[in-house]
């Protein structure tokens, strides 16, 4: 399913992977997270080869498309959940939970139950949960794609701030070109079946970025053009159906 994907992610960078749906992005994330084994090739995080058996050597945080919080636990207990699993001492865990809730702007909401929060806030809790284990690598699987555009936009902005404040390495999977361009230090465009690197673009626009930056627009335009050409090539010899028809 995935073939010839050879990427090195620098520590502290924010790499986004942009690909058409069904190109094996979820499989890739599962393999990186040590839930599926690779059939050939090798995945290493921080010098440790990842496989289903050796997965405990590196810490990986995950943010999903949906918040996936436990509705019967308070916000605080939700963020705490993976910390308990790692046997973090009680007061250290308390401190960390509060720190990361503050970081995502929900310091006051620790005692709320998730169902009383809005979708955007729930997703922030999920982000705090992913960060609280202080992971070597944070995997984000289209975390903003289920939110309305205004909320998503605000969260993207905050996401880059938080990422810069914590200095984590982030792997961000998305199918939103603008989002990928806006967020990442480097983006990878992959093709579907087999999943191969199509483009590898470094985005040298300094942070903090504004979504309306012309440089970002230029990159977005270029990537979009290329992406559509790639899709058309993949869908065979049919006459070019322009996007937006």
């Amino acid at each position: 399913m995935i073939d010839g994907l050879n990427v090195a992610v620098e520590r502290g960078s924010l790499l986004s992977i942009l690909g058409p749906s069904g190109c094996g992005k979820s499989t890739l994330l599962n393999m990186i997270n040590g839930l599926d084994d690779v059939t050939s090739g090798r995945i290493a995080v921080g010098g440790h080869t990842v496989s289903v058996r050796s997965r405990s050597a590196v810490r990986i945080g995950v943010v999903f498309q949906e918040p996936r919080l436990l509705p019967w636990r308070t916000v605080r207990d939700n963020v705490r959940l993976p910390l308990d699993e790692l046997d973090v001492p009680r007061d250290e865990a308390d401190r960390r939970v509060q720190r990361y809730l503050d970081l995502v702007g929900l310091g006051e909401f620790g005692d709320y139950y998730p169902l009383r929060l809005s979708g955007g806030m729930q997703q922030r809790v999920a982000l705090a949960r992913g960060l609280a284990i202080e992971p070597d690598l944070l995997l984000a699987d289209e975390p903003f794609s289920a939110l309305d555009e205004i909320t998503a936009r605000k969260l993207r902005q905050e996401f880059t701030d938080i990422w810069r404040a914590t200095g984590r390495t982030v792997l961000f999977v998305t199918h939103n070109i603008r989002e990928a361009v806006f967020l990442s230090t480097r983006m990878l465009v992959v093709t579907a079946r087999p999943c191969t690197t199509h483009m590898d673009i470094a985005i040298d626009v300094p942070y903090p970025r504004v979504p309306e930056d012309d440089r970002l627009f230029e990159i977005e335009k270029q990537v979009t053009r290329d992406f559509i050409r790639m899709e058309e090539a993949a869908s065979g010899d049919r006459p070019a159906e322009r996007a937006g028809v």
Partner: protein
Amino acid sequence: MPAVAINMWQGVKAIDLSLIRMGRAFHFSRSSILRKLVVPQVIPFLLAALRYALGLAWKIATVVELIGLSSGVGYQLGYWFGLFNMTQVLAWTLMFTIVLLLIEFVILKPTEHWLTRWRPSMQN
């Protein structure tokens, strides 16, 4: 208790698998997944099953007393009914009802309310 078993079966079928996947993504141990992610999701179904089982058990106990035993509410009901003493029959029925209501409102309802306190209520 096939009804209870069926209820539990439904409960297990209704488990939100995305939460289990979340647990696996964070590398929870099997026992943690069971304790922290599976059991809490089954609890509402367990409560419903328990309530049903309790009602059924009371009914059966009363009928058994009525037919075959020489003490208990069922026996008293049958005895006074045989003597055409409606006052006693109604008194025993009333007492029986009160006991059941007490169990419902003092034990079951508060427990259920506490266990499902995370659900936003209609008012807010």
